[in-house]
Structures are given as C-alpha cells and as structure tokens.
C-alpha cells in the first residue's frame, strides 16, 4: 500500500490537533480555571496567562462545601449499586437471548431498544408519582431504581453479543456428558464470559454516573443524598460564585469514572463496538 507523503502526514496531524482541541477544550479550561485565584478570573481584558497559579482551590473547596466528600461518595455509591443490580438482571437475560429461541424474541429485543428512546425525561411524571407512592422520594432509591431501568436495555444488547461468541458446542458437549444447566452456566459460561461482563459493568457504571443529574434534581431534595453533579451548585453562593473551586470540585468529582475508564479503556473500546459492527 502507498505510504503517506510528508505534506499529507503534516496535514493529518494538523487535523488531529484541531480535532482534539475541540474534544479537550472544556477540560483544559476547567483545569486552568481551577488553578487561578478567583479575583484573576474577572480580570479584564482577558489574560491567557496568570502569574500566580496554585492548587489552593483544591484545598479550599472542602471548606466552602463541607459535604463535598459526601456528594462524591454518593455518586460513586449509587453508580456501583446501579451497576450491581443491572448485572443481576442482565446476565441471565442476555444469556437467554443468546442461547434460546422463543416466541417474541426478536420483537422483545427491539422493544428493549425502544426503551432507550423514551429516556428518563419523558417518563418523569409517572416515575415521580410511582416513587411518591412507595415513599421513595428523597432517598438513595429515588435515583437508583430508575437508574437501573435505563441501564438494562443497552447492557442486554452488549452482553448478548458476547455470549453469542462463546461456541455453543462447548455447552452441548457438557450437556451430553450429563452436566446440568446450572453447572454449564457457572462452570463454563461464567468464566468464559468474564471479559464481556466486565465491559457491560463498565458501561453500566459510566452511564449510571452520568445520568444521575436528571433523577437527582427531580426526585431528591435532601442534601445528604445528593450526587456530585447536583452538589456542585452549592458553589453558587449568595454573594459570589466560587468558580475556581467549582471547577476543581468537578475535576475531583469525575475521578471515579476517570479511574475506571483509564484502567479499563482497552476493554471499553473493543467491547462496545464488538457486537455493533457485526450487524
């Protein structure tokens, strides 16, 4: 195949730089803002360079919003809980879709995709009433219960693609040898599908972490249960907005997802697209 000529190479790198400036711009701005003292932010005219950058905001933010640590914990805790229950629902269902033929199989798979279309925002009113009926408003469950529901559909599709890759002959051989269904599931399927389950878990965790905002502002008004995304509004005070601390807290607040992402990014890129491309 032909090699890239030098001008083409330079042009492509140039495009890549532009592309990534767009992708990373808000993060760079956030980080930069978190390092600048508050009074410098309002300097006019705009200055690209500040002479006294510091990590002061990262220390001060815990005093400005005393519950900040709690908010980050809440976000993490709720995302983990949602992930756990999502897997509990999704693993058997995905296995069933991958291995068995039954009436309404294709139809129900499409209905699952349709669930994604309705997203949380469309169904908020009855959800609000439902949660109120069961006295779940203003609890962790108010954000966990709907969170699980909207993680299930895509997770089933993801994991189903993984299960389908495991040769059915393996199971048949075990079946012929007299292994029970439960044995097959726990001793053959579970170990072989661990990577797929990990990808699904990561996906569910990221989505659960991201979707908390809507449920939090709608179904919860108790400060102690707030996730970080809605807790950030507390930096907006009566007198002034502590912008630099807000940005610092945002960066610290996304650490849980970023850590999950950095360690497992290889699986995410491969796993998310594995099932999609085939069709």
């Amino acid at each position, binding site marked *: 195949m032909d090699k890239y000529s030098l001008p083409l190479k330079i042009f492509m790198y140039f495009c890549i730089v532009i592309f990534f400036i767009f992708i990373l711009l808000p993060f760079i*701005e956030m980080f930069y803002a978190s390092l600048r003292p508050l009074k410098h932010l309002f300097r006019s005219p705009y200055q690209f360079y500040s002479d006294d950058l510091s990590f002061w905001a990262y220390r001060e933010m815990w005093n400005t919003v005393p519950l900040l640590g709690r908010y980050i914990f809440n976000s993490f805790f709720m995302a983990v809980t949602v992930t756990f229950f999502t897997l509990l629902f999704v693993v058997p269902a995905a296995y069933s879709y991958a291995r068995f033929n039954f009436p309404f199989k294709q139809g129900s798979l499409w209905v699952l995709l349709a669930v994604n279309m309705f997203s949380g925002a469309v169904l908020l009113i009855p959800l609000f009433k439902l949660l109120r009926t069961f006295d779940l408003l203003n609890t962790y469950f108010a954000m966990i219960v709907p969170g699980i529901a909207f993680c299930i559909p895509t997770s089933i599709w993801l994991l189903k693609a993984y299960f389908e890759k495991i040769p059915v002959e393996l199971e048949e051989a075990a079946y012929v040898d007299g292994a029970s269904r439960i044995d097959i599931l726990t001793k053959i399927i579970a170990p072989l599908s661990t990577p797929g389950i990990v990808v699904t878990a990561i996906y569910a965790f990221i989505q659960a972490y991201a979707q908390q905002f809507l449920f939090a502002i709608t179904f919860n008004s108790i400060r102690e249960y707030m996730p970080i995304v809605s807790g950030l509004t507390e930096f907006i005070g009566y007198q002034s907005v502590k912008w630099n601390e807000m940005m610092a807290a945002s960066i610290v607040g996304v650490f849980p997802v970023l850590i999950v992402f950095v360690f497992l990014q290889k699986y995410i890129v491969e796993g998310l697209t594995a099932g999609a491309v085939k069709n």
Partner: protein
Amino acid sequence: MKNKSKLVSFNSPTFLAYVLIAPAVIYLLCIVGWPLFETFRLSFTNASIAGEDYVGFENYEKLLASSKFSKIAIRTFVWTFFSVLLKLILGMIGAVLLNASLRGRTIFRILVLPPWVVPIAIGALGWMWVYNGHFGILSGIGIRLGILDGPFSFLAYKQSAFIATMVTDVWVGTPFVTLFFLAGMQAVPKDLYEAAYCDGAGRFRRFYHITLPQITPVIISMSLISAVSTFVSFDIIFIMTEGGPRGATTTLIIDTYKMALGNYKFGRGSARAVMIVLMITTFAIFYFYLLSRINKKVSHG
C-alpha cells in the same frame, strides 16, 4: 441424526428461557412500561398536585392550537438536525484520522472518549466556562483578534445560545459516533483496499468506493441512535441556559419538564411527553420505511 436432535432440543424454546429474562422484563414493565401507559392516561386529565379529573382531548387541543408549541417543535427539529449532521461529519473525520496508521494513534483513541465518559452535567459546566463573556477563552480570543469589541457572553443572546448549546451537544455525541465509525472501518476486509490499490485507485477513490459503502450500515444505525438521543437531550440545555434566553433554547423536552415539574401541571406535561413519544416513533418508522426503499433500489439497480 441422533446428534442433531440433541442440538435442536438444546436450543428449543423452554421454560428456562422465559425464567431467565423474566426479572429484567418485569422490572422494565414496572419502571418504564407502566409509566409510559400512565403518561398516556394522565395526558387526558388535568392532573396536578391537588388531584386529577378527566378532561378528554383538551390538553392536546390547547397544545396544537398554540403557536408557541409549534415554534418549540420546529426549534427542536432544527437543533436536532444540525447537531446530528455535525456529529456524523465530525465523527467521520475523527474516525478517518484515528484509523490512519500514524504514530500515537493508540493514545488518540483513548483521548477521544472523555466527553462520553464524563457526566454530561460536568462537561456542560466546562463549556459554560468556555462561553463565558468575562473569563471564557472564546470571548478572550475574539477580543484579542479584534472580532469582538468587548466581553461577549455566548449564552446570553438568542442565536449564539442556540448554536452554543448545539455545539456542546455535538461535543458530547461525537466520541461515540467516532468510535463506532472507527470500528466499522476496521472491520472492512483489508484485501478490498489492496485490490483497489493494485488497480490504481487513489486514497480518495478507495474511501468513496470501498470505505463508505462498507460502513453504510453503521452510519445508518448511528444516525438513528444520535437523532433519538439528541431529540430528548436534556442536561446540556437545562444546565447551560434553562431554555433561555427568552426561550431561544427551549426544546420539547425542556418545555415538558418545566410544565410538568416546574409548574406541577402533570396533565399538560404528560400531553407534551406523549407528543415527544409520537414524534420519535413516527420518525423511526419513517426512517425504516425510507431505508427499505433505498435498500430495494440498491438491490434492483
């Protein structure tokens, strides 16, 4: 023969299959199915915190008669259309760049994902900063270059706020589109390219005649998925402008939210939610219809 019958019985519809999917299905029926049904029912009532009475089609009549609603609907379609278009174009450019055998592409592939990984609410905060008139970089560069006379708050004016929220939505959606286009490109058999190269096809021709047709299914599914998620995109607008200034960024979903949970008019809010569901469903059906028409044409011609 004996072996085959074993195979069939192994894959046959069983009680077990239903038992395994039952928990997920029942959960979704309670948390999504029932609320969907309830939304339809409430849309025919004047439900509020106080109580509810059946009012027939009154909510819908009001809705369809108001010019405000049609304005909001048109605005939502325009916002969605351009946002999806930009996502697809940028996603394609990004995928081509990340697919090229350049040094550092492994890192590029990781770096493209943060907008998708980070909660939208926090990404939106970052963009609010970028758009800020006094300390945002866009306004700063504009002043330095002499394009702007003074601080310009992008979110404070109707047109710029409309475009600014759209750009943020494009930013949120682009990584996902890029990732799937990239995966599609990598699944294209390599020998197709080699054969074309031997026949003297240049880079652009190879892209146009091999890559594009090969990844068409991915393009089609991504445009549908993006369109639907953009149509009901909530966090970005709600955080950045709350639908303002003067309604310039109020989309259907924002309008629904404000009506239902800002004013506690559950009935009228539900009618709006039903309209959204109907619009999405109509769009999806129309989309699939168009798709099958195109497929027929392609296979016949």
